[in-house]
């Protein structure tokens, strides 16, 4: 009913008093702005975490030895409590139909690759062939560690492209070249058999002050790393399932398997961790937190709504005479009510739209400073604008009803 005229009238009214219109909208702008900023920011964190976790191998299943009693302080493992390679092989054979890859590793020392004046920081890691797939290593040149390297404990290494550019400066093909690694234990020389692409993530800058000093892993055969290690057995390994294998049921199946293996061990047991579940759990917690914070921000919206109602009541009083005149000219009460509700909805909608823009800018600024992906959530925007319209109706209704109920004679006489 007369919607077009009401809208143009309300807009003209707002234009004639810009400062007041802006101040009235401010509550809505801040409310919607903070909700949008928080939701966008939460989404950005979620997607960054998801990306980072899948890079780190969060879709893997981890099997590790842990104390039966959580109070037991474990500072040193005995080989008899750990999992031997034979046991791992037996396990892998039994579940060969489900497992697509299995990785064991032995972390070694940190050190420096040196070649004259050139150097590159490294941390040595003994790995098996399965490590490549499970940890998403992208071998660019040559090959990764192979079974033969392990059997023969060969002095070979797979190095990062960063090391290659630091040491060889692009002058020669690194494959087949020797690299000297200086650790606290002394010098060791490895033959480079492969180069992988190093990817930094938000969780792994390794305390480097400059990009040049970034410490990158240097992969050697696990058998080689075990030579200097305290334990010859493993306290953990990781595996990845074949497509279509349900991770939850598989997890409980292998839990039973390892419980049987460890049934005589009074101090230790084997724990199976299904990272996929934990990631999902973590994401749902993150979602809940961001929802809760958004809900708190929504309180600002409520305050904004009360502000709109306050101004609408003032506006009704100011325009008492106008309302009386309109009634004398034949405006039905419903039309007067509509006029004020439309005005309130327009204030809130414009406020909501400004708030959305403001919130997106805020989220964009925040995510880009933190180096995260900026994701625009269309549903959040639509819900926010829709919700601000609802606030307009809700908080405009009482003033509008008051205006509609005015007695025309009283209203015309109002000074």
């Amino acid at each position, binding site marked *: 009913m007369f919607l077009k005229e009401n809208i143009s009238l309300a807009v*003209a009214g707002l234009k004639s008093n810009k400062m007041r219109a802006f101040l009235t909208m401010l509550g809505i702008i801040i409310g919607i702005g903070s909700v949008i900023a928080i939701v966008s920011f939460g989404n950005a964190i979620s997607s960054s975490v998801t990306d980072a976790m899948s890079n780190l191998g969060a879709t893997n299943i981890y099997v590790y030895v842990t104390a039966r009693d959580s109070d037991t302080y474990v500072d040193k493992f005995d080989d008899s409590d750990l999992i031997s390679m034979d046991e791992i092989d037996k396990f892998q054979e039994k579940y060969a139909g489900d497992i697509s890859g299995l990785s064991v590793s032995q972390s070694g020392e940190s050190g420096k690759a040196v070649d004259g004046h050139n150097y590159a920081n490294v941390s040595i890691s003994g790995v098996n062939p399965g490590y490549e797939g499970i940890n998403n290593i992208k071998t660019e040149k040559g090959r990764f560690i192979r079974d033969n390297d392990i059997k023969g404990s060969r002095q070979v290494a797979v190095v990062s492209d960063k090391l290659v550019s630091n040491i060889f400066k692009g002058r020669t093909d690194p494959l087949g070249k020797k690299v000297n690694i200086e650790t606290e234990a002394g010098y060791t020389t490895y033959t480079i058999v492969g180069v992988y692409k190093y990817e930094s993530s938000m969780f792994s800058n390794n305390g480097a002050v400059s990009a040049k000093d970034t410490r990158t892993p240097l992969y050697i055969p696990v058998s080689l790393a075990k030579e200097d290690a305290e334990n010859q057995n493993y306290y953990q390994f990781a595996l990845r399932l074949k497509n279509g294998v349900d991770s939850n049921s598989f997890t409980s199946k292998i839990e039973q398997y390892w419980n049987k293996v460890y049934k005589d061990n009074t101090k230790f047991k084997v724990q199976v961790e299904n990272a996929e579940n934990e990631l999902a759990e973590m994401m749902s917690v993150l979602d809940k937190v961001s929802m809760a914070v958004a809900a708190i921000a929504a309180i600002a919206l409520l305050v904004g709504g009360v502000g709109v109602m306050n101004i609408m009541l003032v506006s009704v009083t100011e325009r008492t005479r106008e309302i009386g005149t309109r009634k*004398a000219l034949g405006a*039905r009460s419903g039309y007067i009510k509509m006029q004020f509700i439309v005005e309130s909805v327009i204030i809130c909608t414009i406020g909501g739209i400004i708030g959305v823009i403001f919130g997106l800018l805020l989220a964009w600024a925040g995510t880009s400073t933190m180096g995260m992906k900026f994701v625009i959530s269309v549903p959040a925007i639509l819900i926010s604008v829709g919700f601000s319209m609802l606030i307009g109706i809700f908080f405009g209704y009482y003033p509008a009803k008051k205006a509609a109920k005015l007695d*025309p004679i009283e209203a015309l006489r109002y000074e």
Partner: protein
Amino acid sequence: MAGNIIEINNLVKNYYIGTPNELHILKNINLNIQEGGFIAIVGASGSGKSTLMNMIGVLDRPTSGTYVLDGVSTSDMTDNELSDIRNKKIGFVFQTFNLIPRNNALKNVELPMLYAGVNGKERIKRAEELLAMVGMGDRMYHQPNELSGGQKQRVAIARALANDPAILLADEPTGALDSSTGRMVMDLFHEVHERDGKTVVLITHNPELAEEAGRVVTIKDGAIIEDRAGRGKAEV
């Protein structure tokens, strides 16, 4: 012989009914007004003439009695029906003009037609004609605060005529104007009355203006005490 456009029978209006300070503002008013007439209702303030105007303008309901406007009884009408009657049958002209602020002259004249559901093009065409008729054709897009008192009242008269009402109901239309602009406004009423045959009801406490009407009704203490022909326009 034209019929009665207004028939008021035994109309009573009391305020604060049932309380010790119950007021009897209008006491048994009987008044018929002929179609095409020009009638002045005069009385001192507190005489009940404003209340009578509110009754004629269906802004208020009588305590008892009947009011038939243009052949239709208003007694049992709903609020919305009364709104429609005000919209289509009555053209209000106020002492303080009551133009809607932030709406230009054209929009003000369009307003009653908007409420009547007249479409946009037709509304604008008729509003332009009416503004031209009252001599405001060159100020159609002026805001009320850019107009003088006399100009505002002319816009208000154009607005009152928008839906071609049965009566033009003017409450002290010259009360806020100086005598020369007041004269111009009165001449406009005469023009509308004589040329268009519009019924004009003029509420005033100015006896000189009242005499210009064809019929003068004097009200005192809520009752009509005199009802006679006007003496005609004062010679200047």
